[in-house]
């Protein structure tokens, strides 16, 4: 047998299980990272404007998609956030179709009186969509400026300026803190 061919066959035979094992390990680490990010993504979706119930549903569905992912992605928290955000927005459109039911449900869920304590969240929800996304990515998910830029598909400069604008408005709502 040609020595080179023999080497190729041995490499192939040995490499296949090794690749599988590496893929499994990578996938396991991806799922572990997703689990770790679950809570912060849930809070991020609430900060984007969802009710805790809707945010729970959206994040759970996003996590199920993470379980079905064949390839591990970079930044599991960012991936989970973007997927959950899309799911929540789709749910919101559906809810608008059945508005009377949604109004009833909102009235029932807002009896707890937590709004007063969540005033800063209300201020975040009043920010423009891009500023909200940047604020959540940076302050809730804990992503860096560069990671936020890559996640949202914008430049780092845009992230910086958007963060500054959002900071100004949020500081005003916090009572003009220095």
């Amino acid at each position, binding site marked *: 047998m040609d020595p080179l061919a023999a080497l190729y066959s041995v490499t192939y035979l040995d490499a296949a299980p090794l690749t599988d094992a590496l893929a499994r390990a990578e996938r396991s680490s991806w799922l572990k990272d997703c689990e770790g990010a679950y809570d912060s993504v849930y809070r991020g979706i609430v900060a984007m404007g969802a009710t805790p119930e809707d945010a729970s*549903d959206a994040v759970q569905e996003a996590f199920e998609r993470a379980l079905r992912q064949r390839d591990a992605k970079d930044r599991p928290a960012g991936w989970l956030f973007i997927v959950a955000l899309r799911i929540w927005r789709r749910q919101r459109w559906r809810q608008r179709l059945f508005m009377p039911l949604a109004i009833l449900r909102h009235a029932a869920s807002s009896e707890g009186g937590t709004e007063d304590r969540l005033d800063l969240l209300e201020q975040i929800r009043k920010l423009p969509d891009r500023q909200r996304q940047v604020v959540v990515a940076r302050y809730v998910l804990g992503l860096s400026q560069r990671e936020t830029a890559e996640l949202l598909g914008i430049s780092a400069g845009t992230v910086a300026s958007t963060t500054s604008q959002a900071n100004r408005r949020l500081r005003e709502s916090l009572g003009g803190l220095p």
Partner: protein
Amino acid sequence: MTDPYDALVQRSIAQRLALLPPARVRAVPPGRGHRRLVPAALAAILALSGALFASEVNAAAEAEGLGCVDAITKVQLWVAELTDGKLTLVGTRPASISVRSAPAPMAEAVPAVPVVAGAQPELEAQLARSGTGCVVEIR
């Protein structure tokens, strides 16, 4: 480029978010329970009733030898059948409508079948307008 990260804003947001109840995990995965089942059932019921209605209307039109007329006319025929039990008691004008199931050039070869006597004027007009492979004469 300086990073405008504001630790105070971050801390304030974290404090507010800490007041939230923990994320709950549903035993039934979201989107697979009644939320998807109800619209799917409604769509199935609508589709089924639509198919039944179309079949009923077509059968009524076929029974009168008017299988070739347009859908609106078929529905009108069906309604007339429902209200009167037969088509001849609807209008007041003494008129009759003949239908031949053949293209216009071959119309002479096919004997005309009288279908309606004393139909509503708008029904006659609908029948007269109907085209493809169906010759309608109003007398």
